[in-house]
């Protein structure tokens, strides 16, 4: 089914080493457009490292990363963002001194067509752009049911809401590809199922491809089209959710070998 669609993100033989440790080891990945693709694996498997390579925070020592046909291996994070990639962070990287609305307004940076000199005198163009951006931001806030807390400072919010604000900030970038690093971590059962609906709707209504790292297996299995399992920076297994669930290698990576002594 997926073979008919174009690739949006391709990792070819990616490796990165920190000291003596190969955090990501000859990793290949191919995410198709409109796909929800999950990366799972035990702690320290190199999932977040892979994310950081894709979004440009780390530079791969070997291999190539292609995003919508462009080689982004050597690009800086802001250049990759300009190509249409948004992301969230495992340990939240919100702008803590700003309101919810301003966090999203900051993400409108690359969609705002004004220059410094216009902004100094605040001419009509600046005001029009600002109104347009604010409208877009409020559209996203209501999509995420955050409209009522738009003017609250983000530090006054609880962890689940902060996570949703960070998701909103990534959406305000209007990305083609969204990277979500453990979006369900710290959420309860109800919040997690809401999040699952939200991610499905991000793909369906906004047409955004989603690549996520997640430990919550019920969520991963219910929303993902395909799943890759990493351990020690290597791919152990790649396939449909039902294939992953029944794969002996995955069970081994998570729980250890059946015959080994604990």
């Amino acid at each position, binding site marked *: 089914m997926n073979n008919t669609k174009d690739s949006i993100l391709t990792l070819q033989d990616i490796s990165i080493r920190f000291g003596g440790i190969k955090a990501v080891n000859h990793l290949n990945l191919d995410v198709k457009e409109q796909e929800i693709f999950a990366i799972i694996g035990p702690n320290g498997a190199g999932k977040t490292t892979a994310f950081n390579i894709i*979004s*440009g*925070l780390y530079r791969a020592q070997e291999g190539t990363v292609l995003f919508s046909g462009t080689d982004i291996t050597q690009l*800086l*994070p*802001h250049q990759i*963002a*300009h190509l249409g990639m*948004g*992301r969230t*962070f495992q340990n939240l*990287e*919100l*702008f*803590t*001194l*700003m309101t919810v609305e*301003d966090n999203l*307004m*900051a*993400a*409108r*940076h*690359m969609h*705002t067509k*004004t220059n*410094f000199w216009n*902004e*100094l*005198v*605040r001419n009509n163009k*600046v005001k029009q*752009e*600002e109104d347009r951006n604010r409208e877009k931001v409020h559209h996203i806030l209501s999509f995420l049911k955050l409209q009522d807390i738009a003017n609250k400072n983000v530090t006054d919010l609880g962890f689940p809401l902060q996570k949703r604000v960070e998701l909103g*900030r*990534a959406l305000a*970038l209007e990305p083609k590809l969204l990277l979500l690093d453990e979006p369900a971590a710290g959420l309860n059962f109800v919040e997690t199922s809401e999040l699952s609906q939200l991610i499905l709707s991000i793909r369906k209504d906004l047409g955004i491809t989603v690549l996520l790292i997640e430990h919550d297996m019920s969520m991963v299995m219910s929303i993902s089209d395909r799943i890759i399992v990493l351990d020690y920076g290597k791919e152990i297994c790649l396939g449909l959710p039902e294939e992953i669930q029944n794969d002996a290698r995955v069970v081994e990576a998570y729980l250890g070998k059946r015959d080994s002594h604990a």
Partner: protein
Amino acid sequence: MQNAKKKERKIISLVIVVILLLLAPLFISNYILYLAGVIMIMAIVAQGLNTMIGWGAIFSFGQPGFMAFGAYFGAIVSRQFPMLPFPIILIVTGMASALIGLVIGFPCLRLRGFFLAMATYGFSSALFVLINFFNNLTGGNEGMYVSPPTFGPLVLGSIEAIFIMIVLIGVIAQFFVSNISKSKTGHAWRSIRDGEIAAASLGINIAREKLKLFTFGSCLAGVGGVLYAYLIGYLQADFFSSMGLSFFLILVVGGIGTIWGPLLGSVMILLIPQVFGGVFSQSMNLVYGAILLIFVLVAPKGFLGLFESLITSVQSRRKA
């Protein structure tokens, strides 16, 4: 609707304040005018630092250096080209200071925190030495006299005229800063302060925005410097090297990252010697040190922050 009305009222009250300030020379003694002029100049330079620290977390000790550069540059240009009207000199000095900011910022902004502070401090110190070294241009240790600003045949030598000039430039600077604060650039700068990794993930070019911010802050310092030269009429490098920490003091007292903090801080810091001058005239630094300590410990958001939290607590009490 209510917002528009509120805004209207705000603009009207601002206009009244500006008109009163412009009319002030008619009623106020020269000494007070001079003091008010210094306060506003310090506020302009502190505003430059305020944008750097409050929005970009750029801890620069370069402000006294850029202010000195602007003062000497403006004074030398007006001496060499007496025909130039003062607005041209102000603009050229602002541009020259911005250019120096760009050149100094480019290598320095690779550094952060303490190291950035040291590098910019090094710039300021080196500049003071250079000013004394090129004594044929600057008068060296003996200082140099500044010719009064001119506009065609008009010579604006009186303190009243210079005061009005300072008020107008101060208003323009405040207008620019408040506009930038609301704009895309303002959002980008504040997002860099709150988290560079996240800002980069939103497509913000950190290196370029920081350089822009540093250049902007340096430009304000340079413009403040040339106004200072006009106001005092005489320059010595020591004037600026002794300013050292005063801009930080102004910001801490006024409120870092707020639009009106620099002005409020300047008023308070420069009025203190007027109040305590009799008793503590030999140990003003002791008073400043105590103030700095008290504000950092008790009101880190400065006077403006204190005021805001007072208002919110009164409002919440009224609601209850």
